[in-house]
């Protein structure tokens, strides 16, 4: 990946002609990062004042010899929606999958640094990964309902926990489906296969499944990228509703989506955190011009 706004090659004499240095190119930091340099992240004070649910602390990650995350340090605020944006391959998804340690399944992954969920170290060797994942919910790019009924999909995390009491399951099922704004559409066919739902319904079912276990943090990995605009709208509305009740960490490609749905936005580039602040600030008056260039669509 290469920053695309290098000086045009066919006009090497341009800066010589003007005689003075060009106004600081808006992507100096990005060029430095691309060249392998380290730059400190610009984290707004507003972020630091929030109560964090999840603290990412000097986190590095390698796939084999290739480093994918560089010293990421960022607190994720409690009961707020935090969006991770950045061009493809910048490590957003990798960071998200590191939170619930899904990257453990990849053989060649190596990490340093730590993350803390409500104060508990996630990468503590004594941490039980299965118990850890039960404290989080995750929704993936492509809807992945399980090959079972809608009802069983929603209560899956309770079932694997050994919960078999019908009233409890019924209640959780209804609450979660209502929470995912799906209840009215499926309440008459709870015991039909979940695979018969439309793509958008399947994705909201996955959200219902994720919130059924009352997660401390909800991880959304580009939840709308496989959906059509109408289904996307419904899922975005849902994320709005989840705001204030759940701590949400969402990865997205879509600037409008980030600006519409999130309270805080973090801009990442080539495995580094560049700028992190309140969404309105990031989109209207970012500290860094690099961020402005990205969110206004001048590169990426």
């Amino acid at each position: 990946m290469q920053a695309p706004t290098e000086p045009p090659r066919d006009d090497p004499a341009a800066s010589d002609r003007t005689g003075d240095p060009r106004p600081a190119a808006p992507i100096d930091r990005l060029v430095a990062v691309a060249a392998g340099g380290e730059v400190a992240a610009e984290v707004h004070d507003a972020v630091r004042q929030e109560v964090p649910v999840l603290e990412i602390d000097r986190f590095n990650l390698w796939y084999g010899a290739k480093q994918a995350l560089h010293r990421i340090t960022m607190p994720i605020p409690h009961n707020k929606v935090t969006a991770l944006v950045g061009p493809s391959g910048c490590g957003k998804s990798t960071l998200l999958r590191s939170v619930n340690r899904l990257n453990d399944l990849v053989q060649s992954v190596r990490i340093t640094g730590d993350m803390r969920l409500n104060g508990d170290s996630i990468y503590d060797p004594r941490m039980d990964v299965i118990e850890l994942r039960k404290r989080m919910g995750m929704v993936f790019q492509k809807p992945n309902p399980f090959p079972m009924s809608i009802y069983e999909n929603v209560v899956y995390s309770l079932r694997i926990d050994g919960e078999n009491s019908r009233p409890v399951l019924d209640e959780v099922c209804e609450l979660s489906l209502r929470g995912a704004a799906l209840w009215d559409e499926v309440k008459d066919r709870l015991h039909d296969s979940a695979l018969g739902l439309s793509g958008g319904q399947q994705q909201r079912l996955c959200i219902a499944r994720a919130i059924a276990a009352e997660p401390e943090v909800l991880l959304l990995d580009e939840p709308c990228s496989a959906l059509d605009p109408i289904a996307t709208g419904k899922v975005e509305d849902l994320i709005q509703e989840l705001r204030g009740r759940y701590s949400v960490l969402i990865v997205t490609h879509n600037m409008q989506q980030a600006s519409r749905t999130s309270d805080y936005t973090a801009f990442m580039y080539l495995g580094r955190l560049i700028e992190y602040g309140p969404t309105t600030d990031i989109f209207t008056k970012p500290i860094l011009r690099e961020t402005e260039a990205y969110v206004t669509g001048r590169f990426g």
Partner: protein
Amino acid sequence: MSSDRFRARPRRLRSAHSSLAAQGEPWVWFTAGSLATAIALIVGLLGYIAWRGARTFWPVPLERLTLRAGGDTLGEVTEREAAAGGQPARLLLRVANFELTGRHFEWFDEPAIAATSRPEWATAVERLEGGRFHGFPQRLVHGDEVVAEGPEEAWRAFEREHPPVRRRFRQALRIDRVERGDLQRQLRAARLAVVQAGLDAPGDAARRGAAEAAEKAVVARVAAETQRLDVETARLREENAGWALEFRTAADDAVRLPLDQIVRAWQPNRLSLTGKAGVYLSRWGEFLGDDPREANSAGGVFPAIWGTVAMTLIMALLVAPFGVLAALYLKEYAGRGPITTAVRVAINNLAGVPSIVYGAFGLGFFCYGLGAGIDELFFKASLVADSQPTFGTGGLLWASLTLALLTLPVVIVATEEALAAVPNSMREGSYACGAGKWQTIRRIVLPRALPGIMTGLILAMARGAGEVAPLMLVGVKKLALDLPIDGTFPFVHPERELMHLAYLIYDVGFQSPNAQAAQPMVFTITFLLVAIIALLNMAAIWIRSRLRKRFVSQQF
């Protein structure tokens, strides 16, 4: 300068039309032709088997040939050959009456035949022994008394008297085979109990005495029971004795056939279409529901149907868990590395080992190894007293296990592929919910892979049901009338030998003393075997489609 680079240059075309290779028309024909040839071969084979197999039991007219040299014969025309290379045209006649003619079939040169006719009263008789008989009914007798005289009267009387005679005959047969067999088994069990008592506690006189007393009681009871059965069968035989149908053959020999020796008789030249259909169905009924007779070349194949179905199902039940568990480990747990690759290659190679090798292994390991061990532990008495192994020889269980071993690679490979086809996103979704590995496998991966696993099982069943070579070594026999499940305690006898349709094809077709007469039977058995395998497969496919509807998405 840059405008130079993009100066338009006319593209050079060899012709105004796209070439044959570009259109690829010949390849459509070529590929379609290959498929059509394959389909034609398969349909041709199945059609031929179905046609030959289905018409075996259809009554064929009886032709009376009068030869120029003198002499008449009566029989079914089974084959005609046109004149060729100086040879006159000739026909093959099923002449039957083996005890008179010394042959079942005979070739006749057409020019030597003076006249042919289809006499109205020509009768084909299936006998219990001695094969087919062709002749003309003359009179029905009971002892010295003539009940009916003349072909028409005799035939009508035969149709009236034959069913009760047959019924009594079957009753006597049942008593001999089932009830007396049962008594023999009781005797043997009591005798073995005495031996067992001696083996268990050599010095324990009290126990031995008790066993001996029990044996005496059984012997007495069996003797009384035998006497009762003797009286019963003697009465039945007495009632049947004397009933006979007297025939005259085309060669003018007089033959007297006892009625209870006649399985079935029909007069094909007189039969209407419904009458022929009746004979046809009745022969199918016997074929499907009865025991074989005459060295398997006549009668039914019921024990073989039973053996084939039971063995195939037991094999499927045995191979499914082993194959699925092995594939699960290979795919879900085992790391990627040279050892896993080696194991995978070895499994694929196992599928190429000749099946007779599995048979030899089954005989050596299951029968002589495991079976002998079981006998030593639990069935010592039989070994000591009769030197007769129980599990230490071929049987249903060992045959099924051998076939399970044979089809294991098929199931493992198919299951591995089915597991690989489960999207990783489902596994990740389950892990993200906090499920452990086994929970994910059991609740998500296995249900989703089940249709694919069923495909493997279907392939395995089709392969297993058609095997012959290994079965000959591990328990399939030419004749084994005792079914592995019956009314005798403990009701299930996995150690018993069995019959099998595929082996029957070999036995009837190539080991029969009367190969030509048995030939139509071979086609019928083949037809039946193919039909049974198709039925088993269809059942499995039906289950699979139901599973697929439940577990596999139509979305995306």
